[in-house]
C-alpha cells in the first residue's frame, strides 16, 4: 500500500530515471521506498506492468495472403530448374 506523501518533482524524476533498470530486477522495483509513498509513481509502474503483461497476450493473429506461398513455390521451382541445369 502507498501512504500519501507529497513528493517533489525531483524525487519522482530521480525515481523514474531509474525505472528502465529497475523493471528488470523485479524485487528492486517492488521494494523501492519511493513506491511505498508515491501514489503517482505507483500508478505509473502499475500501468507499465499492465502494458507489459497485456503485450504477452498479443498472439499471432495475422495470416499472410496466399500469394506469399505461391511466390515461394515459384522461386523454389525456378531454383530447382537452375540447379538441374548447372549440375
Amino acid at each position, binding site marked *: 500500500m502507498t501512504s500519501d506523501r507529497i513528493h517533489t518533482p525531483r524525487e519522482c524524476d530521480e525515481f523514474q530515471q531509474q525505472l528502465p533498470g529497475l523493471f528488470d530486477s523485479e524485487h528492486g522495483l517492488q521494494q523501492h521506498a519511493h513506491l511505498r509513498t508515491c501514489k*503517482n509513481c505507483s500508478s505509473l509502474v502499475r*500501468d507499465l506492468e499492465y*502494458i507489459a503483461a*497485456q503485450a504477452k497476450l498479443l498472439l*499471432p*493473429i495475422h495470416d499472410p495472403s496466399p500469394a506469399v*506461398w505461391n511466390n*515461394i513455390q515459384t522461386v523454389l521451382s525456378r531454383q530447382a530448374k537452375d540447379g538441374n541445369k548447372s549440375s
Partner: protein
Amino acid sequence: MTKNTLRTAEKIPSPTPSQPLTAEARPVHQQQRRNPPIAGELAAIALAQQGDGASFEVLYNMHKRRVYSLCLRMLGNVAEAEDLTQEAFLQLHRKIATFRGDSAFSTWLHRMAVNVVLMHLRKKGLPLVSLEETLEPSQEDGPRKDFGTRDLTLSGSIDRITLEQAVEELPPGYRMVFVLHDVEGYEHNEIAEMLQCSIGNSKSQLHKARMRLRILLRQKADGKVDA
C-alpha cells in the same frame, strides 16, 4: 513420395536421438511458452531436411502465422511484411539442413525471421535504435505528474485490438524493442545483440516504448469515454 508418412509424425524418431529436436537450450523463457511443440513438426522437419517439398509446405503452414505476425508488427506494413515472410521461408529452405535441434525449431525459425527483418531495415539505412529517442527524452516521455491527479490506472481498460493499434503507432525504434521484448519474449541481452546496441540502450528504449504506449492508451481510453 514421402507424403503419406506425415500422418505418423510423432512416431518417427529424431534423426539425432542424442539431441532431441525439441530440446531447449535456454532456461524457462517466454519463448518456450510461445513455442509449444506442434504435432507432426518433428517428422516434417526431418523430411524437409531431406528435400521433401510437401513437408516444407507443412512447415510453412505451421509457422506462417507466427512469422508473418512478427514481420508485420516489426514493420507495420503489409506489403513489406509479406515480402519478408517470403524471404524468411526461402532462407529457411536454404538452411533447414543445418538445423540440429539445439533449440526449438520455432525459436530457431523466428530468430531467422527477426534477422531477415533487421537486415532489410539496415539495407534501407534505417537506424534500428534511434539515438535521439534514446539520449534526449522528448517532453512527452518526461516527468510525468500528468496523470497523477486523476488517480486512474489503465488496468482492465485496454483490449487486444486497442493495444495492437497503439503498438502500430509507436515510432519504429520503440516498436522494434517493444515487439521483441514484450510481445516476442526476447531478453535484453538477445535484443542488444540483434540490434547491435547496448543492453542499457535496449532497456531504455523498451521503457520509453511502454511510456509512449501508456500515453497512447490513455488517449484511446479517454476517447472512448468522451465518445
